């Protein structure tokens, strides 16, 4: 059992990710100075701007030189490097158990989570993890210790995926837990009621989190390559269906595309990063593609 979780740390994949830099797109609040630009204005060498004093501001930040010249109170704001607080929200529901390829979605998702954890911990960033299905199944607090990865991996492997996904409750729980703004990485197949998902994402964004969705899908779920009469036994009590998959393929692809388009559209509206990842894709390629894409996508935004 102790060695079991290590299966998510596939050495060759992790070594390749090693060369990449995980950069937060948003400025994340953190305690440690580092490579990341802090979303908070604190003590730093790099001045950013002046802002008019408002009651409640720390009087220590008032730039007296400006006051002496203008007789007005301005405070100085500096850009500050900080630690990235990343929370991995991993779907371990029954539907994630599906997988026709080498890995199930669950395994793939856990591998992503492990890889990210490893990467972030190496950069001294803090990583937390929440595994969920119908409810939150396990919670691993956000830490930046090197050996924190073991706690996270244990939290992942300890769960035997089952039951139905109820994501809103989970995301609400995440939002409540993570009082400090950070990065929320949702690893899921998103086979959940769309309303709950969108509501949860909106909530997270509202709290200022940088949200990233790793939409894990199996090849068969996307391509629906089944042939011959097949009895599809629905996971999560979705019922059974005997059919000739060929004849339903077009309709199915259409429905899945519609589903993905919905997600993508909604995520774009809410400034949520959304990426569909096939379980057949190389893990590192998927990650590097995503992270590179993320770096170049937007400039930092300050509140």
């Amino acid at each position, binding site marked *: 059992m102790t060695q079991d979780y290590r299966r998510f740390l596939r050495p060759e994949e992790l070594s390749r990710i090693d060369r990449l830099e995980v950069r937060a797109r948003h400025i994340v609040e953190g305690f440690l100075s580092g490579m990341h630009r802090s979303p908070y204005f604190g003590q730093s060498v790099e001045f950013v701007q002046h802002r008019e004093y408002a009651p409640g501001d720390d009087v220590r930040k008032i730039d007296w030189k400006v006051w002496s010249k203008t007789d007005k109170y301005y405070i100085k704001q500096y850009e500050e490097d900080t630690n990235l607080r990343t929370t991995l929200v991993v779907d371990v529901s029954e539907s994630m158990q599906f997988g026709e390829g080498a890995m199930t979605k669950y395994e793939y998702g856990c591998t992503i989570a492990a890889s990210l954890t490893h990467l972030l911990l190496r950069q001294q960033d803090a990583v937390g993890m929440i595994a969920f299905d119908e409810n939150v199944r396990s919670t691993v607090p956000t830490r930046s210790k090197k050996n924190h990865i073991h706690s996270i991996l244990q939290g992942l492997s300890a769960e035997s995926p089952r039951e139905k996904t109820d994501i809103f409750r989970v995301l609400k729980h995440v939002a409540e837990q993570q009082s400090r703004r950070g990065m929320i990485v949702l690893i899921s197949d998103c086979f959940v009621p769309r309303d709950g998902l969108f509501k949860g994402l909106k909530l997270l964004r509202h709290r200022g989190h940088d949200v990233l969705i790793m939409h894990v899908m*199996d090849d068969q779920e996307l391509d629906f390559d089944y042939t011959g009469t097949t009895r599809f036994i*629905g996971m999560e009590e979705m019922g059974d269906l005997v059919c000739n998959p060929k004849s339903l393929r077009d309709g199915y692809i259409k429905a899945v595309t519609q589903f993905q388009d919905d997600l993508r559209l909604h995520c774009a509206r809410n400034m949520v990063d959304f990426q569909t990842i096939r379980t057949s894709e190389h893990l590192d390629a998927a990650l590097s593609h995503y992270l590179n894409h993320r770096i170049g996508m937007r400039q930092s935004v300050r509140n």
Partner: protein
Amino acid sequence: MGWLTSLTSFFVNPALVLPGLALVSSPIIIHLINRMRYRRVRFAAMEFLLASSKRNRRRVLIEQMILLLLRILLVLLIMFLLARLVLNPDTMSLFRGAKTHHMVVLDDSGSMREIIGEGSAFREAVSVVQKLIDEGKQRPDSQKLTLVLLSNPAEPLVNQENINDELATRLETRLENINCTHQHFNLTNGLAVAGKLFANDTESIKHLHVISDFRQNDWSDKDAIEKRMAELKAGEVAVNLVKVVPKQNNNVAITLLEGNLRVAAAGVPITFTVGVTNFGDTVIEAKSVSVSVDGIQINKSVEFAEIEPGEEQAQTLEVAFNSSGRHAIKVSLDVDALSHDNERFLVFDLPDTLPVLIVDGNPGSDGARNLADALEAGQFAYVPQVVDASFLRKSPLDPFRTIYMLNVPTMQPDALDRLQEYVAGGGGLVWFVGNLVEDDFYFTDLHKNENRYGLDKIGLFPVPLAETPDDLDHPEFRDLAADVAFESTSIFANFKDFFRSSFFDVIRIDKFYPPAENWSSDDEIRKDGVRTLAQLRNGKPFCLEHQYGKGTVVTFLTGIDDEWNNWTRDPAGLSFIVAIHDMQKLISSEVGELKQYTVGTPIHRELSLSSYSKTVEIVAPGMPPVAIEASPPGLATTDDEASLNGSADPAAGDDAKTADTKTDEKTADQDVPKPESSGRSDIYIADFADTDTPGVYSVKLTTVDRETEETLYAFNVPTEESALKLATTDEIRGTLGDESAAQIQEPGNFTWLQGKEADQEIRRFILALLMLFLLAEQLLSYKLSYHPKPGSDA
């Protein structure tokens, strides 16, 4: 399973129909198996799958059904192609299926000689047989042939031989050499024999082809044909009636030629009757029948002005022959569609004289002399011989044509026996009563005597006589009523016409013998076979006629001398002479027997070796003389006859009698000696069966003294075969009965033979349809299946 039988009749290869139908279920079974044998997959994205299923359910169902239907149709169409569907089973070839036994009954009766185009109906029929063989040999050794001639169904020309090139070559010349007979055969015999031959074959598909002209005559016996057809049907024989005559031709035939030879003798004109029948549909005008005597055409002809359709008209012809002995007469018409019935032959033996015996019970009386004078009058060749009653006991009576019994009181029993034998054998007998007649003898021995031949109820004398003669009371002055009133009967018909009433008036009857009191003079009441030919004025019979065996007896209830009447004296004497001669023509025994036979009847001669040599020479018309050896009775077999005939065609040499008899009966006949010749060991028999050609046959016997005795036989065609009226298809169907499933092929239509092409048209259509369906199936199944784009999704 009747539907299956009727279904298979639409296919050239019916054996493939059942497996084909079974295969139709294969797409359904595959579909069902696919439905039952499915893979189980636990699937997460059921939401989308269910949505797709919900949206596409109806479309998917319809598409699947169409695909299934297409596949079923494909299998069906392939089955149609392989089993070779034919829309109209009538056009189907008979050469299908596995082992097929074709039996051909070839009609070679006289009517098949009808001229059609450049050939005859029979040649046409033979060509149909050849076509059948040509068609059959394309599938060598899967078809068997039995070829039966209607003239000799018991011995098929070909018996259950495989149709192949070897048989075709062998039959080609043989079929060309078969000649159509002139005879009449019963079609039902052919059908019966075919049924028997088929009964031995239990393995093959059986086809009976009756190739005939199908005249109405052949189809008159509905019951028999219906019965035979039912038997064939029970034996699972498919009957195929093949007509070879396309349309009916008019035909005129000589159907009658007879002569009155009772009083014929050399130098005496003989009356021949020539009958011509119009078998056509239109009125025949101005037909002339030419006449040949002993092979030389004479300057006489018989003219027929107008003959209605279906009518037989008879005309008389008088020909006198100068010499006695054998003569042949031939009458002939112009050639028409059926030529052999335009001739008719008659042969006869003409005597020098006609001996007549006059037995006088009162020798020396005038009556016998008057009668003899009357007989010798005119051009006739009568030679009367007047004798007393004892002559009957001593001398043979056969040479005499007629015996007159004048006033014979009584006879010895042996004389009576011989007289009875003579009359029963065909001799003519005339009674004149007289004073000496003993009524007891006449009643007991002559009238009542149950003759020993068991032929008649009445003996030689027709009436019981009263005890004494009676006087006919003459009125002082004659009124219009004559003493004798002659009936318009056969004997006195001409007589009455000729003499009119004035000649009767002069006949005066003085005395007569009345019949017994209780004897009714009304023929209709008695009904004893005695006809009253003449009555007296008082209603009593004067002249009576009755048959005794083959002979005719005429009785005058009066005497022949002056005491009884004035008939033999002038002025009534003339009528007496005419009456006697007319009577002679009708009652004389026929010594010059008319030798007129129907073709095909074998010539059967018995000869005594003590008088003749065994070699018999026979000259058939148009043929060189053939010598045959007579053989002892019981040894004469068909094979011997055939070899003796010298005929080139063994089949034609068979005893024609067997055409209408069954095989087993024929075999039995060979072992049993002929009854008439069983008693004498030196009696040999010569049979000549090859008498199919109509004409005069000469049979020459050589006596031990090396002298030749020639007998002529006239063979004529049967009149049945002259009626060319064709039976229509409906009539044939009507005769066959409702139950019969026989096919009837119209003349010139050979699609039933060339059935291999019958499915050509539909085959192309099916092929096109098959291609179309294949394409549709491929398109549909391509559409319904998933095909990844090349290069995508590595």
